[in-house]
């Protein structure tokens, strides 16, 4: 799984939010974003972009986007997720929002989602991507 250095990873909204809040229960989010960002190839799908916009002011959002430009690479994917893939993931048991994320990742062939949302693992048992906690990604980058 050390290919994480050489492959794009999607960072879930909760990773950004916990990092910026400096959430004590999830300290690895801050380390991953503030310290390890330049080692990551980041993929940001439309759904997560809009979620960040809803959580942040325009000034905060600009700051995050400027920081993301310092990642090893960053891909902004503004294309809506394919409807047929969303429907398939919903049929597989995912809630609509998670189905959208899964569809984005599948369409873009992204194999890693960094998220602190444990529900992803239980909802999507046969997903084509790995859901990793920030802590695990930091360990893989060492």
């Amino acid at each position, binding site marked *: 799984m050390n290919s994480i250095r050489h492959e794009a990873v999607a960072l879930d*909204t909760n990773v950004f939010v916990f*990092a*910026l809040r400096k959430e004590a229960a999830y300290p690895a989010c801050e380390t991953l974003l503030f*310290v390890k960002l330049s080692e990551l190839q980041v993929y940001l799908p439309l759904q997560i972009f809009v979620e960040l916009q*809803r*959580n942040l002011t325009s000034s905060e959002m600009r*700051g*995050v986007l400027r920081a993301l430009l310092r990642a090893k690479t960053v891909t902004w994917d503004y294309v809506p997720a394919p409807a047929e893939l969303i429907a398939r993931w919903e049929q597989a048991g995912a809630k609509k*929002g998670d189905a959208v994320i899964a569809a984005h990742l599948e369409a873009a062939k992204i194999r890693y989602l960094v998220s602190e*949302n444990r529900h992803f693992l239980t909802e999507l048992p046969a997903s084509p991507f790995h859901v990793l906690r920030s802590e695990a990604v930091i360990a893989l980058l060492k």
Partner: protein
Amino acid sequence: MNSTEQVVHVTLKLPKELYDRVAYAAAGEHQPLEDLLSVLVAEGLDAHASVRELLERVSAQYRDRLTREGKLEQPADEVLQELRAMREQIASELYPS
């Protein structure tokens, strides 16, 4: 600009050509010239900042806002729950079925 920030007034001399470019951009973005200049100075400084410095600044701004809104001490599980609810809402807006 954050309304609680202190403001310092400065006099700036610019080459006419540079001034014209900024004025043209400000008009295009429908914002006062001095606001755009302030943004450009901040962005210029950010270009020299490290990732950590950039994100520390955003984090401080974000945490100040959450404090004002009484949300900074919100338990992490509650934050996760809110994010999940927001995800569902945005997905329904972007992909109405």
